[in-house]
């Protein structure tokens, strides 16, 4: 499935997963079927993925997320945007994120 992320859109962690932090590791546990390629997969995010994940709160747009990360990390704007979009698309494909409608995000 090819899913495109929209820089002007907001995204929220799906209710179809359980996110746990165990001994410093962020672990994503599928709750419903169809999350991973296989039924028994768990997922973890590396430091970069985690920094992005924690900003995907359903209110900030991806553009806001990129701007915040640019202030926090020493990396080129293009590099950060590419990472944010890449991870968002990966997580959308796995149904770990959901897009938030614009009127919901602005509430």
């Amino acid at each position, binding site marked *: 499935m090819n899913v495109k992320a929209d820089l002007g859109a907001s995204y929220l962690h799906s209710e179809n997963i359980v996110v746990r932090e165990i001994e410093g590791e962020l*672990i994503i*546990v599928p*709750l419903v079927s169809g999350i*991973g390629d296989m039924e028994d997969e768990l997922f973890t995010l590396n430091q*970069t993925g985690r920094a992005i994940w924690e900003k995907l709160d359903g209110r900030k747009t991806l553009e806001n997320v990129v701007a915040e990360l640019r202030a926090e*990390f020493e990396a080129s704007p293009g590099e950060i945007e590419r990472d944010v979009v890449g991870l968002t698309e990966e997580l959308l494909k796995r149904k770990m994120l959901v897009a938030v409608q614009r009127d919901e995000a602005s509430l």
Partner: protein
Amino acid sequence: MLWSRAIENPYCEKLNTAEAKLWKDKRPALESLDIELTERCNCNCIQCYINLPADDRNALRRELSTEEVKEILRQAASLGCLRLRLTGGEPLLREDFSEIYMAARRLGLRVALLTNATLITPEIARLLASIPPLEPIEITVYGMERDSYEAVTRTPGSFEAAWQGIHLLLAEGIPFIVKGALLPPNRLEIEWFEQWASTIPWMDRPPSYSVIFDLRARRDSTEKNRRIRALRISPEDLIEFLSRRREEYLKQMGEFCSRFTQPPGSRLFPCGAGVGGACVDAYGALQLCLLLRHPDMVYDLKEGSLRHAIEEFFPKVRQFKAQNQEYLNRCARCFLQGLCEQCPAQSWMEHGTLDTPVDYLCEITHAQARDVGLLGASEMSWEVRDWRERVRRFSGSGAIDQDYGRRKSTSR
């Protein structure tokens, strides 16, 4: 953090906790938890070490409530537990099974369900299909036809019920594996069973079997223990059974012996019981393993917390040392201890103590060792001084070394 350094890895990594090294620095205090939801069962299997009648009022009255189970699950998750095994008795006898299952999954636990499959309804199958357990369901199959199956379960209708349950799982595509229990009524069905098991999509290896049956874990019935003893396989038949794929068996034995043979000394728990894992009985007693119910070895979760039990109680218990002189003379000096099922739980079930040798286990372990040439015909393992060399030769060759055993035995 340098951004460029952090993106060396993929953002999102798939984990298979059965294979991957999940924990980089520190392991969680609790990695897995077994909960025996009930000792009651709808079957009455001839070899069972724990089952009580499905309508046992005393058991029903004492069992943990739904909320008490959920509280234990919450505590387990807070300690980092990722894997939960729900067992029994028959766990699906609990009317609140679905609620407990959902609570576990919502806490982010993977759930392994151990069941006889007879109580898997279309509703249960739909639940497991929509909210996957993330671990294969484990089903013990007692026979391939009604007569053999129900000669074991002594429960009319259980054969059809089990196969109906299995077909519901197949129809919903819910991963499960099957296991056998090698008993007189089904001994002639092994090939049939294994051939059928190989058609199950999630069976990536031949099924495992219960072969050495435990006595009653509650020490609650002399009569049942007498029957279980009568069902136990003889050392000769065990060797024949284990050797049905001889080369594979020898290879596995060699690998196992190279890793797990050495005398344990007086430590009662050279095993991993209570390290990263724990078991809760149907009434809230925390145990190091499912079988060990000696009153000095259990912790009442209704009076304390899972964290306290794991951090304070278990480490103390694991320091216990054997006192029994016979144990110290035999088991403590036995290099085959890793191969033998002798442990405090077995001693408890057989003798009501923690450190009494169980002769049946000793006999079958010696028979296995003699069969592969680790011991001579009349040698006892605790008398062997050059056990390292024997294990090295056996494991290194990966093949049987019967001559060695014969030479040693005839030289005595």
